[in-house]
């Protein structure tokens, strides 16, 4: 498995979209929510109940299903389903955490960059471009070296890498909104900059931003799996799906469940949030909401 090398897309508002039927729109959103909810429920359940202890190795090595082990055990005799559940929790945490970091740092930087002028504007833009070109993996290794291989290190690294993408997007969006007449109109009536940003700028970039953040969530989950696969994620006994994949790799031909199960859940979660992003794009985009001009 290769690390998803940050093909972090920027979403542009699709202004000339053919109108999507309301039903198809909500179908996409529903499908996405259902898939995502499945994983989120697993993650929540893992907080209060697990079939086995995470370090319970009493199951016999690479056993098939049975004896309380829903999906069998891994090569150390640990219950696979238990690991999948904690893996779900880690995936959701990684996604939420990274997106939170990316949103906080990215929006702040992006808004500042949009307001900056002259050399500061150029410097910030160049800084963001460099940060975007910087591989997530390398950044993660730096963060791990500076701290330690924990889930929060991974979240920090992924979140920081993504914040550059978010910041660049926010910078463009804010600049575009700032040039609009309604911002000038608000300013002429004596609205201060902070209030203008909070009241007019952020709400108007929100639809595009939230879709992008949903996409970033999916990418963050993949990135965390990649880091864990390389041993840079959450340490044992917290089973991340990425580490499960790595551990099951050697025994894939004899016991494929160990690799298939986390792989499938990973796909379910990522496809789920991408469908949500797609559905949100159609429902939130002011261009499709705004019919008459």
């Amino acid at each position: 498995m290769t690390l998803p090398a940050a093909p972090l897309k920027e979403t542009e508002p699709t202004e000339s979209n053919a109108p999507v039927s309301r039903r198809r729109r909500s179908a996409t959103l529903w499908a996405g929510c259902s898939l995502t909810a499945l994983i989120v429920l697993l993650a929540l359940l893992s907080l209060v109940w697990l079939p086995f202890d995470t370090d319970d190795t009493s199951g016999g090595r690479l056993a098939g299903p049975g004896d309380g082990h829903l999906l069998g055990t891994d090569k150390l005799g640990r219950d696979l389903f238990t690991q999948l559940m904690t893996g779900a929790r880690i995936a959701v945490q990684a996604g939420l955490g990274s997106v939170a970091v990316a949103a906080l740092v990215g929006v702040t930087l992006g808004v500042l960059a949009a307001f900056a002028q002259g050399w500061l504007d150029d410097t910030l833009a160049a800084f963001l471009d460099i940060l975007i070109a910087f591989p997530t993996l390398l950044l993660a290794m730096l963060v791990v070296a500076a701290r330690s291989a924990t889930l929060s290190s991974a979240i920090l690294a992924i979140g920081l890498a993504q914040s550059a993408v978010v910041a660049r997007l926010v910078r463009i969006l804010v600049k575009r909104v700032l040039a609009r007449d309604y911002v000038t109109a608000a300013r002429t009536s004596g609205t201060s900059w902070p209030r203008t940003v909070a009241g007019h700028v952020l709400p108007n970039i929100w639809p595009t931003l939230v879709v992008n953040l949903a996409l970033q969530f999916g990418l963050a989950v993949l990135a965390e799996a990649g880091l864990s696969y390389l041993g840079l994620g959450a340490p044992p006994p917290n089973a991340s799906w990425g580490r499960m994949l790595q551990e099951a790799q050697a025994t894939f031909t004899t016991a494929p469940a160990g690799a298939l199960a986390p792989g499938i859940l990973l796909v379910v979660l990522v496809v789920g949030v991408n469908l949500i992003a797609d559905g949100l794009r159609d429902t939130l985009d002011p261009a499709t909401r705004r019919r008459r001009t």
Partner: protein
Amino acid sequence: MSPRDTSFHTSGDTLLDVRGLTVRTDDGRVLVDDLSFTVASGERLGLIGESGSGKSLTTLALLGLLPDGMTATGSVELAGTQVVGAPEKRLTAVRGRDAAVVFQEPLTALDPLMRMGRQIAEPLARRTGLRGRELNSAVTEALVRVRLSEPDRIARAFPHEISGGQRQRVALAMALACDPGLLIADEPTTALDVSVQAEMLDLLDTLVREREMAVLFVSHDLAVVAKVTDRVLVLKDGRAVEEGPVLDVVTAPRAEYTRALVAGARKLESALDLRSPR
């Protein structure tokens, strides 16, 4: 007092004093060139000129809101505050209180994602300090005052859900909500059809007289300007070519350019007949 006589107005306190206002782009183009004029409190001045003559930029410069890449020099004194080169904080205090703007294009001047009621409530709350239900009824009142017949529906509507004429009334209500000393109207009727245009002018005229508000009325249409102002300043390529009482300028234009403008003024005669008596 005859409508021709503006001595009453010009003898009032000077609300806006513009001296040598010049707007330059960073690459050196001069878009507004050495413009000087005054507006006394309660006076109504028309700013007229063809498209691209710098009217909108002048209004923006008056409030220190020029687009990026442009700088103003000279002096703009609004209610005693120097606007040119003033720090943002002082400008924020002046805007709305001393001067508010109704923009040329009402659709783009309203936030597409904010209900009309909230857009009016914002300046209203800032000025009056009202909250909650009292604020809501003040908003409704503001909408009624600009003669909108369904104030409650319009307060809940988004800009794309109401007509162009209704939008422009909302924009006017927003500007009036600030209760400014000077109302700057940048071609507030250009985007409207002729019948709505007449209603809008009438409304603006009435409201402004009621409040004894000073007006800077921008237009390329001499007939429109003649209807709602006392004095007029003619702008060409960013430079003032003529200034004087509106009827003098209309009946005896001095500058070549104004003469052409007067000749071309659409239905000027009928517009002058419409001019409401004082």
